[in-house]
């Protein structure tokens, strides 16, 4: 049933053409970033991973609201399982994001932008990191569209939070301890992106810190998604 719901959500979303603005902006950004940025491939990968977060965030916010409300009633009753129905929304966005992860890595690989050959395990690590950042973006996007926050102020709050998560305030204000500590309670977007950057010219070898960041990011995304499903199950009946 989940697969059928995901196919239906993606088909509906693609027909709504709401995907066009975020996807076009992302592709244009990607092209510009890899072509013109003088900061080197490793930093570029850091920046593109933040762009993936914004793309995932934007796509999930628009996909959650793309289905007509009356049709939502019909779909929910056909599914006969509210948890699976709501879970299908983030899973649909995660599925939609897969080509973008591949594209983000494929462009510099084809263009020969890496100073050395990447090992298969490193490609896997990059894809896994993109997946984690994408999943975090999806979870933040759906969380702010779960009716916990309503009205125009919710959109503003969503934008502010997205900005706070993307801009590394903990690095900019590293002398203000509360800011640094507060970052440990927020979704670890920059920390996960940092791991990509830190690979640098040295060959990647799996260490505990990478694993800890991966588990942290995954747990955070799962927690926000579960919260979204919980809230939607309650709110949809009001």
């Amino acid at each position, binding site marked *: *049933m989940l697969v*059928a*719901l995901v*196919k*239906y959500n993606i*088909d*509906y979303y693609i*027909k*709504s053409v709401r995907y066009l603005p975020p996807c076009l902006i992302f592709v244009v950004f990607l092209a510009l970033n890899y072509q013109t940025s003088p900061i080197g491939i490793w930093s570029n990968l850091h920046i593109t991973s933040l762009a993936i977060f914004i793309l995932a965030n934007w796509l999930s916010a628009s996909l959650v609201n793309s289905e*007509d409300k*009356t*049709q939502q*009633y*019909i*779909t*929910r*009753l*056909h*599914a*006969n399982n509210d948890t699976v129905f709501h879970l299908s929304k983030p899973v649909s966005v995660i599925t939609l994001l897969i080509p973008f992860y591949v594209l983000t890595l494929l462009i510099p690989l084809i263009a020969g932008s890496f100073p050395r050959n990447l090992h298969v395990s490193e490609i896997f690590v990059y894809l896994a990191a993109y997946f984690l950042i994408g999943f975090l973006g999806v979870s933040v996007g759906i969380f702010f569209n779960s009716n916990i926050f309503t009205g125009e102020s919710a959109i503003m709050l969503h934008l502010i939070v997205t900005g706070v998560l993307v801009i590394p305030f903990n690095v900019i204000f590293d002398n203000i301890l509360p800011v640094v500590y507060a970052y440990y309670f927020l979704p670890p977007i920059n920390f996960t992106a940092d791991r990509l950057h830190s690979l640098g010219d040295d060959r990647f070898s799996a260490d505990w810190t990478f694993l800890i960041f991966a588990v942290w990011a995954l747990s955070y995304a799962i927690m926000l998604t579960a919260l979204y499903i919980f809230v939607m199950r309650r709110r*949809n*009946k*009001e």
Partner: protein
Amino acid sequence: MPISLKNVSKSFAGKLVFCNATMSLRANRPTVIMGRNGCGKSTLLKIIAGVLAHTEGEIVRRPGIKISYAPDRFPKLPFKVGDYLLHMGRIQGISDSDINKYADSQFDRFGIPENIKQQVIYKCSKGTIQKVNIMQAFLTKPDLLVMDEPFSGLDESSVEELIRLLAETSDTAVIISCHEKLLAQRITADNLYVFDKQSLVKSSEISNRVSIKIIPGDAGDFFNDKIISTDTAEDMCEIVIEKENLKEILFLLLENGHEIYSVNPREC
């Protein structure tokens, strides 16, 4: 019994839509709800379908109940008719071949040309959209079928087909809202409900009610226990009572200085 309601009420932002809706829905006994526009029929049907919460009262649903819902205004979706039915069927776990077989039979039944399958829903006529709405509701055999104004937009032959289709759903509890009394009576002889002054009553009970319009617009509270509902306007008040209390209440009203403007039987 798939579902039963006891004293169910619904309010939106503190404003009462309806109160004290009590009914049990059973297979082989279709239920029809009638009432003027905006009285709460669609809201009640959404509550019964389980897509909207009630404010007060108790609803008991059989665990694992399968519900189908046909809304009064089916959305103008960007899907082709055939693709939409495939999606809805797949979500229910039906195989593509079974969905296509079902769609073909329903297209024949409602006299829809085959090429409509390839037409996008938002480009279809009002009648065809309503038929798609009905088709999606009948994709599988539900335990409870909730249909909001299903006859709206249908031509005469399609209305007959739908009545036949409803008669075939013997193991399903059916609840329908309908505007036309004659159609409602064809679907059910004894299970017809009417919204009267924000409360749901059986049509047989409503014929025992009388409406009295009085001036000035305040009935007072000296016979509250016998009033079913009051509706106060600026200079006039309408009260609904049981026919058997008419004599006594008219006497009390006149005795308390009210002017009787009209006395009328309540109707469906």
